[in-house]
């Protein structure tokens, strides 16, 4: 299912002050494609994702999923958030089952589907543990499994590994590629890590400092299936270098803006 952003604008107002977060973002993610969005902090990349997810209304422009304008959350669009979102009062298996349970899937079927997902994200043996007993990386896998069990055709991820250390992030990224290749979901992945973007994506979209617009799109010409060993290849260096070239400028704008 194709995802498209058409001239998306968003202005937040708090009191009398108006802050323009997005100033006309255009981008498209083709069916089955994996696209990352990187940008300096505060550039509105999370807002962009929430607009595509139907959680936030744009001030202008529109998001399209499968050719239809997004009016609100839809069941075939799955979202994984940056913040801790595994439910602490539910076990791993109960967390993964949540969406199916809420939509009235009978117990036997939802157990089965959830167990498959628990296996897929490598949490077998932890089905009956509570999130409080798991590491941060494992909790994020729970959140990913809870989203994937709904069989989304579109997967939106907002810095899902943002709170984790570099090594864990690369390993989980590798696992995500494996899972993604099996589901074939169209994926929009928000990150601030250039390495992560280069490792995972077909294309990397670089956003400008606030107000956010698309500054550059870098094609990643690395063979699939890939794993984190591509980090040492010349193509990886080229992509990272090109992304950083643009991002550096934008990040400096953000930093200068803060200093003034």
């Amino acid at each position: 299912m194709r995802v498209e952003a058409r001239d998306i604008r968003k202005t937040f107002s708090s009191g009398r002050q108006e802050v323009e977060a997005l100033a006309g973002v255009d981008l498209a993610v083709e069916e089955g494609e994996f696209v990352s969005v990187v940008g300096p902090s505060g550039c509105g990349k999370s807002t962009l994702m929430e607009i595509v997810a139907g959680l936030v209304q744009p001030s202008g422009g529109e998001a399209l999923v499968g050719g239809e304008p997004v009016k609100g959350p839809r069941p075939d669009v799955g979202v994984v958030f940056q913040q801790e979102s595994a439910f602490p009062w539910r076990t791993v298996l109960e967390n993964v089952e949540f969406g199916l349970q809420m939509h009235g899937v009978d117990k036997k079927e939802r157990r089965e589907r959830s167990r498959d997902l628990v296996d897929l994200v490598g949490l077998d043996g932890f089905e009956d543990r509570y999130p409080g007993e798991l590491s941060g990386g494992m909790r994020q896998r729970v959140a990913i499994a809870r989203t994937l069990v709904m069989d989304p055709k579109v997967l939106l991820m907002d810095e899902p590994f943002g709170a984790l250390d570099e090594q864990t992030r690369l390993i989980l990224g590798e696992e995500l590629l494996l899972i993604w290749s099996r589901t074939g979901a169209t994926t929009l992945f928000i990150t601030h890590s250039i390495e992560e973007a280069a490792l995972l994506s077909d294309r990397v979209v670089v956003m400008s400092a606030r107000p956010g617009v698309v500054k550059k799109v870098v094609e990643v010409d690395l063979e699939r299936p890939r794993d984190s060993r591509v980090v040492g290849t010349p193509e990886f260096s080229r992509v990272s270098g090109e992304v950083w070239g643009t991002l550096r400028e934008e990040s400096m704008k953000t930093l200068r803006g803060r200093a003034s």
Partner: protein
Amino acid sequence: MSEAARVRLARWAVILAAVAALEVIPRSGLGDAITLIPLSEIIPEFFELLVEGEFTPHLVATGGAFVLAFLLAAATGIPLGFLLWRYRLLRRTLDPYLTTYYAIPIFAFYPLLLAVLGFNILPVVVISWAWAVVAVILNTAIGLGEVPEVLVKVGRSLSLSRWKVLSRIFFPAAVPYVFTGLKLGMIYALIGVIASEFVLSTRGLGYLVSYNYVNFSTAAMYSAMFLILFLAILLNWTLSAIERRLYAHG
């Protein structure tokens, strides 16, 4: 010896020292012999009263009022806490009253309650309900307010109805806070019942203490005090056990 073992030993030593002091101080003639009597004279009296069933009606009265007051506090406090969280204007209006609430000695209003409700169990229940309910209200409202926004977004992204988001995300997420409110409410309800029985009742353990005090039955008075102490300890112990089970997986 490990630190934990030493701490345990020291705790027992504190209890032993207190018990010894209760025996030794009255015998040594410090304090007057009518109000301070040695432990060895209280204990036989305690068991006698217990076996003869002297405590029973008072225990039933106190227990009944306590359970009633607590259940009322839970049944009214949780919905009121929900309303307070849900309606910002209500919260802003009531905020100064709620935050100063526990500074007001509500027991001072007992003559009013007696006049309005009569000399029966009602004023006792009303006072301890009033004393307990605000803790439940405040903790429920705070708990619902502290639910992380991302959990709500998860619910919305799964296209859940507002009711499902409320019942399946907000409420379970707020349980630890609500439980804290109920725990405080339970303790306040017990304090409320005992304290108001001193002045508002002809039955109950609080009444028993004050009755025996007025009649110079010092050993019986202390026996009633001990029974109250045991009840409070038992209550606290039960609550801790429930809490441990609730958060075993925290």
